[in-house]
């Protein structure tokens, strides 16, 4: 059976512009969303890394025996506490290596009296380990818990700003895309107005006319969305590659969490659906005005 060719609503007229305009918007939206998700992932990683872990600093005393006594007292107090799963000295060698990375080879660390760091793992449900810290401070008043949480709280402000900025860019991209799709749909309808009026008088059902327009919009916007996300993926890969050249570990740090791929994959789908619904509403409203 010969089919009447569908009207070329997508391939001519203003609709042709849809992919060209929507691809950059999908690109920006994807990058903003990816940025937001990366930051979320980083924060979650930090929190997970810190959950149930405490670091305590025992300042070095003037002589080694006193220092050793403080460390023993601290380990004893912690070992006796029910909230503590394990407590151990971060060995001098390990601490040296961590520090040496910071200060570089030029400085000879063995010349300084370094504080002793205790690595404490809490039992699940021990919260932030306040009770254990209290017990420790009673035994060794000089001990200084290192408040990693506090440090994270300070970072929180920065993280909030970055997340808000990313969401703001995302919202702007979506708003611009909606406005563009409305404008393009209206222009497209105007361009096809005489044909639409003809079909209308020939007894075309509204859903037939709207269907032709929404299919074209779906295709064109979906194309734009795919191109935008594709370009964003290429950008992401380029960034990952550059990070990897700096330090392969950074790539893991900044990698998107597995669940975060879904929202990104939804960008082209969202773009296409947005255009489809907009085109449908534009056409149905315009048809209503035609008697």
């Amino acid at each position, binding site marked *: *059976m*010969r*089919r*009447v*060719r569908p*009207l*070329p609503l997508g391939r*001519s007229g203003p609709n042709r512009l849809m992919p060209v305009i929507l691809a950059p918007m999908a690109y920006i939206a994807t990058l903003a969303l990816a940025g937001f998700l990366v930051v979320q992932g980083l924060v979650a990683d930090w929190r997970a890394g810190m959950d149930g872990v405490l670091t305590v600093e025992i300042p070095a005393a003037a002589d080694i025996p006193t220092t050793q006594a403080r460390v023993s007292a601290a380990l004893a107090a912690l070992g006796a506490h029910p909230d503590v799963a394990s407590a151990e000295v971060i060995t001098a060698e390990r601490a040296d290596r961590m520090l040496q990375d910071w200060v570089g080879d030029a400085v000879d660390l063995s010349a300084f009296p370094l504080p002793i760091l205790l690595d404490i793992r809490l039992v699940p449900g021990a919260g932030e380990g306040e009770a254990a810290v209290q017990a420790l401070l009673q035994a060794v008043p000089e001990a200084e818990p290192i408040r990693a949480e506090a440090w994270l709280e300070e970072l929180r402000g920065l993280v909030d700003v970055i997340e808000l900025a990313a969401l703001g860019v995302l919202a702007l991209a979506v708003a611009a895309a909606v406005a563009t799709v409305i404008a393009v749909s209206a222009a497209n309808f105007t361009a096809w107005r*005489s*044909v639409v009026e*003809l*079909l*209308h*008088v*020939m*007894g*075309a*059902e*509204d859903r*037939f006319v709207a269907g032709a327009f929404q299919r074209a919009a779906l295709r064109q916007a979906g194309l734009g969305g795919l191109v935008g996300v594709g370009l964003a993926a290429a950008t992401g890969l380029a960034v990952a590659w550059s990070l990897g050249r700096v330090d392969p570990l950074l790539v893991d740090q900044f990698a998107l969490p597995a669940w975060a791929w879904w929202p990104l994959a939804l960008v082209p789908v969202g773009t296409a659906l947005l255009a489809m619904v907009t085109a449908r509403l534009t056409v149905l409203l315009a048809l*209503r005005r035609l*008697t």
Partner: protein
Amino acid sequence: MEPIIEFSNVGLRYGMGPEVLQDVTFRIDRGAFRYIKGPSGAGKSSLLRLLSLGRLPSRGEVRLFGTDVRRIRRSALPGLRRRIGVVFQDFRLIGHLTAIENVLLPLHLAGIESHRNEAHVRELLEWVGLGKRMDAKPSTLSGGEQQRVAIARAVILNPEILVADEPTGSVDDAIGRRLVHLFEQMNAIGTTVIVATHSEDLIRRTPHDVLMLDHGRVTDPGARVAGLEGLEGSAP
């Protein structure tokens, strides 16, 4: 005979403009053949627009198929429109579709495309002398050829009402006679035919009742026998 079209005190204006039809009252019985004649700008095309449900009246009552068109649900209008075939004064073929696709379009809109129907479309196009131009785009057809495609498109669904605006305006005499013959054949099988025309010649050659229109008013409703006394809807 029951009236298939009934106008009572109908007025039509475009937007905020003046009334281009005023107090138009007439009726057309099912199966009739009626010309609508009048000078340019008299309102013939506007009247046909009301007849084909392209517009609703600004005032008064238009009854098609026995129903007041203003009382018809919006969702029921497309179905009614498909029972009315229209030949537009400016043809209005769809430029992106070939001649045969333009004629298939009403079948497509009605959801009844089929091989048998396509054969019927080909036959019809042969008959109007376009057998060799079926796959041509409208822009490559002459005015007369386009008009014949438009007419084929209007009659393909076997409409109950056929409305034609200057259907012989762009064709030579021989083709014109053929087209009018087609209309008469449709009329013979029960289609109500309404043709707007300037052409005295056409009316003389194939005489039927003539509704006269001038300055938006009916000067003669044209139903010589039953029409005048039937104006109030009391036909025998």
